[in-house]
């Protein structure tokens, strides 16, 4: 187990290093001389040389990369070209909003997807399965942005149940925060809920036909235990894989959802920085997104080995 973890951690670290190289090279590849841009009107050779010296632009590419990496890992992501605010502060402000939104969406989607998926599998052929399948198909087909706009139109503008946009920090007023977050989280979670539901249904149906489920019944266990423990635990292996693959979509979905609901999150920061050509911010945003993917994948791998003991041993020392 320890060897397996170590190997996976090594792989993740390698991917992270590759990500920094891509981000670094990407910015280098952009047209234009940064010294020229920084110098503004005073473009005499002395000023340019001074700027190059100050920002280390004369150093070799290797040295520049090293400086970039060490700064990044020390938490120095530079300053925004537009506002002059440290990029780190901008991200620290935006990240919690997105994390809360995604986490809430994930929780809602998992609960909804697992329950309806199990129901559809157990009540196979009945009206419940029809209903669950129909809702899942809708959830998959309807785009977030449209659903979001409709929700605003109906639930916010029409019925006045939820605020149409805006955000209250979680720590200052948790209730108001949730009130603002619920609708975006549900909208963001619908697609994922549908995917989880369909996957749960199919892997559950498979598990219910397995010999160990018959064994569980033959022991005299309650149907609730047979389905909810013996069959579910085995179906989760597949479901977790799919959820892991879908979390990437959740991140990109958050970008759209935050834009619609005016949430000052990471997605909004990304879009704003791209529109304003704010390179240091773009650079940081891309790197952090890449890191998020890597961390999520690592976490999913860990989760596998918790759910499925066979993986634990296959990669482990025993």
């Amino acid at each position: 187990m320890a060897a397996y973890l170590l190997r996976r951690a090594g792989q993740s670290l390698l991917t992270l290093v590759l990500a920094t190289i891509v981000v670094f090279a990407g910015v280098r590849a952009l047209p234009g001389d940064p010294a020229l841009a920084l110098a503004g009107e005073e473009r005499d050779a002395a000023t340019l040389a001074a700027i190059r010296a100050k920002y280390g632009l004369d150093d070799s590419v290797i040295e520049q990369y090293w400086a970039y990496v060490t700064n990044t890992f020390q938490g120095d992501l530079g300053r925004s070209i537009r506002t002059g605010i440290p990029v780190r502060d901008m991200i620290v402000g935006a990240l919690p909003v997105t994390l809360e939104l995604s986490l809430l969406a994930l929780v809602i989607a998992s609960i909804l997807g697992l329950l309806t998926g199990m129901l559809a599998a157990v009540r196979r052929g009945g009206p419940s399965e029809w209903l669950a399948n129909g809702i899942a198909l809708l959830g998959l087909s309807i785009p977030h942005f449209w659903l979001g706009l409709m929700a605003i139109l109906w639930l916010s503008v029409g019925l006045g149940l939820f605020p149409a946009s805006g955000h209250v920090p979680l720590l200052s007023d948790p209730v108001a925060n949730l009130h603002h977050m619920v609708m975006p989280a549900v909208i963001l979670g619908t697609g994922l809920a549908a995917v989880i539901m369909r996957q749960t249904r199919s892997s559950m149906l498979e598990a219910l036909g397995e010999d160990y489920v018959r064994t569980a019944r033959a022991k005299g266990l309650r149907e609730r235990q047979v389905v909810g423990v013996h069959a579910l635990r085995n179906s989760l292996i597949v479901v977790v894989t799919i959820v892991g693959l879908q979390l990437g979509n959740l991140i990109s979905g958050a970008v759209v959802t935050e834009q619609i609901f005016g949430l000052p999150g990471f997605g909004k920061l990304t879009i704003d920085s791209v529109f304003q050509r704010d390179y240091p911010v773009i650079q940081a945003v891309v790197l952090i997104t890449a890191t998020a993917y890597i961390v999520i994948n690592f976490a999913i791998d860990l989760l596998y080995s918790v759910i499925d003991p066979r993986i634990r041993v296959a990669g482990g020392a025993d």
Partner: protein
Amino acid sequence: MLSVRDLTVSFTGEEGVVCAVDRVSFDVRAGEVLSVVGESGCGKSVTAMALTRLLPPYARVTGSAVLDGVDLAAASPRTLRHVRGKDVAYVFQEPMSSLNPVFTLGRQVTEAVLAHEQVSRSTAEQRAVELLDLVGIPGARDRLRVYPHQLSGGMRQRVMIAMAVACNPRVLVADEPTTALDVTVQAGILDVLRDLRTRLGTAVVLITHDLGVVADVADRVVVMYAGRIVERGEVRELFRRPRHPYTKGLLGAVPNAEARERSGRLLEIPGLVPVLSEQPDACTFADRCPRASARCTEHEPPLENVAGHEVACWHPHTDDENATAGRPAERSSDA
């Protein structure tokens, strides 16, 4: 103790109705080993599952299976749940897939205890250790934290048996318990079953197609063919004087040095077990039977006592035939 009468099971599938078990009746007496024998597809496993209705919901079960005055065929799901594992327990054919791969042995065995007994988790765990010990698993306490994939097939089958006997069931149904195992391992499992019968007084319904296993452990034998019982009797009697041509054929198909010397090859019963959609008024074996006559295809032979044990055949083998001719399928050996 367990009395099965006219048990009939039919499945409605996409290709219509299939009658898997047709009016099967038998008794299981306390502490005996009753063996149900037949080819694949003859309905023996379905019969076993039907006892506590472990069959899928689209199976239609009629008839009765009375255990200590309770008819299991008519019982509520709640009653059945209390019977399963406590009064009637099962050991299945595939020890590889019959244990849940994601739970430890300890969890799976204690679960069997906790399903029917109001005891604490630690008591149940202690009981699990005793059970694993009982079925001959070395280092039982350490095995509690082990997962099924870390054990050999024979060990897994022992775990299955330990789970099955967790609540001292009256009847243990073992459905091909040794088929998936090596011969040496097989002997060990049979020893465990025999030992449990003696120690706990559990009646064992042993379902198998292996006549060697039957000869080894069974007290009485029920021979099934195409969903019906064709012959029934005490094991030595039935092996010595098989009456039904099908039983005779089964015995002839057992690898045997003597038969090989005579004909050079194993004797087989030509043809396959038919899939029946109805309950015909005929002998279902007639198509494959060397002794079949017009009567066999027109009337179903009743299960009747013919000198020593019961057989459902219009032309049963006589003692003289059994003494002299030897094997029935020899008609095909010259071909």
